């Protein structure tokens, strides 16, 4: 494969590009969905192709093709150069590239059972039996899904990188939806849209779906007759997976350096963070310690090298509430004068690599969910995301959860439905006063992060444990 990659790279450099890199990918995926005890969708997918990136002046040119013949690969290199060159009609300052080690290496995701070698009957049976049980117990719509990815990547560059990686990811989840009089209520496990990690079939087995079908069905039905989440300002306790999404939206995207530099301004937006405030800006309370760590075993965004060949690493993002780090690529890091963090990835061979969250997580505290609830006089404990929305500076957010639990004088006293909360990023994180410890720290994964044009879907990780936030506006309704 590296010979083929180098043909394309040589062609781009020979045409006049100052730098070029290319990836050949073989990507396999399997998607299984079940509804009400029946198989709804079973799809195996496989594709293969090359994407080459050429740097000319102030622009990347990128060309992707499924045709891996020598003629096509050489043509692809030329096209990447010509596409980049066309940008000179509207030029900017030349892009520098930060130095990274030039590496030849191999990496395979540690796993026990490759999900593509496990009988599809076992995978289908797990979903069908889970949704069958929930339907039998009274769920209006019982659904489940499993997704597996096996991606082989060969990366080479005009600087001499030759890296092979085989990334294996597995995940899925189940949900019970109850339909009442003009409303729906849903409960999901392990989290909404499922939980995803690097690893094999053993990831799915660890979830033990069938142990949760009764609780999910009972809770989704009970929500229909539960009172509405009260409106007002109260203490808010977030379960880990909801906190993971809160981190994703109000920290993870805000610290992407391409956004901060304005490269995503027209679509995904920019950021409320300004580089001249790095190491000064107060992001949250002293309990807030965020790291971006692509080396965490088993987390969804764990790899050995990013799609620019930069080694995976752990970078401090927020230390004791102070903003200290950003997510970078070789181009953005050089422009901003920071170290390249190995955080650039692409959605398949056909997309231009871009800054992507790795495992951006909140380090655990020293409390526990039990202690947090016991020390709350008037609050709501919210579990499992149902809706999410945040402005393009990553400041003003509103989240909805599947279920809320009213907490009075240190005890859960009632279930409430349609719980929502809203806030402004630094105020919200500044109000975090209790954080659960390592025993409740979970490597939550988000497999559906949209960014870029053309649109790309990214897989990101967000380790988190439950936490409490003081005086948050909750119960917003339309």
């Amino acid at each position, binding site marked *: 494969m590296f010979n083929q990659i180098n043909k394309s790279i040589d062609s781009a450099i020979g045409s006049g590009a100052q730098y070029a890199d290319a990836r050949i990918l*073989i990507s396999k995926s399997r*998607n299984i969905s079940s509804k009400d005890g029946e*198989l*709804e969708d*079973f*799809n*195996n*997918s*496989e*594709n*293969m192709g090359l994407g080459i990136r050429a740097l000319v002046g*102030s*622009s*990347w040119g*990128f*060309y*992707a*093709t*499924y*045709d891996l013949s020598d003629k096509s690969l050489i043509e692809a290199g030329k096209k990447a150069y010509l*596409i*980049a060159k*066309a*940008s*000179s*009609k*509207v*030029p900017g300052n030349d892009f520098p590239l930060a130095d990274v080690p030039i590496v030849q290496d191999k990496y395979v995701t540690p796993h026990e059972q490759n999900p593509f070698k496990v*009988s*599809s*009957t076992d995978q289908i049976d797990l979903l069908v039996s889970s949704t069958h049980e929930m339907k039998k117990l009274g769920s*209006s*719509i019982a659904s489940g899904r499993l997704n597996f990815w096996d991606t082989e990547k060969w990366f080479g560059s005009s600087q001499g990188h030759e890296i092979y990686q085989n990334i294996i990811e597995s995940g899925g989840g189940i949900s019970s*939806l109850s*339909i009442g009089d*003009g*409303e729906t209520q849903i409960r999901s496990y392990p989290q909404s849209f499922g939980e995803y990690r690097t690893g094999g079939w053993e990831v799915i087995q660890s979830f033990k779906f069938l142990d949760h079908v009764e609780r999910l069905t009972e809770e989704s039905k009970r929500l229909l007759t539960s009172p509405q989440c009260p409106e007002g300002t109260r203490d808010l306790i977030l379960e880990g997976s909801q906190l993971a999404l809160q981190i994703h939206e109000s920290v993870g995207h805000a610290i992407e350096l391409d956004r901060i530099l*304005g*490269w995503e*301004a*027209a679509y995904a*937006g920019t950021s409320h963070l300004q580089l001249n405030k790095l190491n000064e800006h107060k992001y949250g309370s002293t309990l807030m310690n965020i790291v971006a760590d692509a080396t965490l075993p088993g987390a969804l965004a764990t790899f050995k090298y990013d799609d620019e060949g930069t080694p995976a690493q752990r970078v401090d993002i927020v230390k004791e509430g102070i903003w200290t780090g950003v997510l970078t690529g070789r181009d953005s890091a050089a422009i901003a004068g920071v170290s390249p963090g190995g955080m650039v990835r692409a959605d398949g061979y*056909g*997309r231009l690599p871009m800054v992507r969250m790795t495992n951006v997580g909140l380090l655990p505290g020293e409390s526990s969910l039990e202690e947090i609830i016991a020390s709350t006089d008037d609050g709501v404990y919210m579990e499992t995301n149902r*809706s999410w*929305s945040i*402005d393009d500076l990553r400041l*003003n957010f*509103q989240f*909805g959860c599947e279920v809320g639990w009213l907490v009075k004088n240190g005890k859960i006293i009632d279930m409430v439905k349609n719980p*929502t909360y*809203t*806030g*402004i990023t630094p*105020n919200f994180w500044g109000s975090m006063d209790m954080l659960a410890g390592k025993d409740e720290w979970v490597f939550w994964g988000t497999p559906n992060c949209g960014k870029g*044009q*053309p649109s790309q879907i990214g897989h990101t990780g967000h380790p988190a444990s439950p936490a409490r936030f003081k005086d948050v*506006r909750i119960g*917003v309704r*339309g």
Partner: protein
Amino acid sequence: MKIWENLIEDTKKIIPSDVQCEIKMINSIDSLTRFANSHIHQNVEEEMTDLYLTFHSDGKTTNLNFNITSLGSIDEVVKKALSEIENNPKDSSWSGLASKENSYDGYRNLSPENPDLRAQKVKDFIDQGGSFNGAGYCSSNVSNVFVWNTNGLSSSDTATSAFLDGIFRSETSSGSSHLGHKTLENIDGEKVGQEAYSIAKESQNPKDIDPGVYEVILGPDAVSTILVFLAVYGFNAKSKVDGTSPIEIDTQQFDKKITLVDDPHKEGALNFKIDASGSPKAQTEIITNGVPKSYFHTRRTSTELKEKNTFHEMFGWGDSFGGLGTNLYLQPGGISKDEMISNVKKGIYINEFWYCRVLDPITQVVTGLNRNGSYLIENGKITKPVGRLRFTQSFMSSLGQGNVLGVGSENRFADSEFGEGILNVPMLHLKEFNFTGGVSG
């Protein structure tokens, strides 16, 4: 295309007579030139040829998809599919293959636009912005689809599209504009740039206003977002099958001023004239004078609901998604933008919505924000730009009876949360819209 013809000829030789098989191919060249900080920084092109194969045998179904490189030999693929299918449970909602009579020949051998023309359109846009910071993209696409099945159906179609979408930013404001057409040469880059610049200029130094219920005028992109949510969560027949759709056919659920059709044959329509079953689409009434007339059906949903298929299966999407109209036109009214503004005593003009998410599909309560140009209107005149607002509003109610005060006279292809080129809409004047938060949360 030769590659397609060869594949089908090879397939015909090896498919057992008791197996139903459907093969779809999407061949496309997608190009996109992206700019930020007033220069082009990313410029991409992808050529893809993806195959989607469905096999149904002994009451069981399996789906495989490959790109043409990973397909290898069709012989091996068929063997693999027939071996896998044995492991699958029965497919009780299988609705068969489209009939041979539905065949349609729309393939045209078209070439992609070149990157120099996209760069020129970007330059035309940037040149309108003065000292403001420009960002956005110019895209062009040629897509071909092919469908064959063992009933003897053989269909094809070709579609092209081009879009210029950009914003200008000042220190305190931003303004956007968006145009789409079948060809890039018909996109007026200067016009898009002038619109975006004008909005950014007029939006400088916005003032915060209190949240609450306001009269609103919505620009085409904001209108498009409301309609696409109703289309995906309401008119998609899969949501009706699942019991989560708020749409009731032949019931006066919307204001009489709302008439929506899906018309792939309208002059200038951007998307395919066939659906993913290979069947031709017809003009379909979706809402007529505020009354829902049809869901977007697929083979499976029309069978489950025992309704006529409207042929809205999407290429590249699985059966679990359902159907969606992709050539939707909201009928224009006769009110110009100036006249619409002059009719507002106190309200807000919203150019674009951002990050909208459904709180409950059955009520269609959605939360989201405004961006890229919002103004307060008082006594028929724009008086000041306004800052960030969060709404929490039922999209069903927003177009409900009596809430649509006016429909604009000019339609355009608008962007939406679910993509561009799907909806062609005018501006709308709505009586009430619920803003639940401001800049401070």
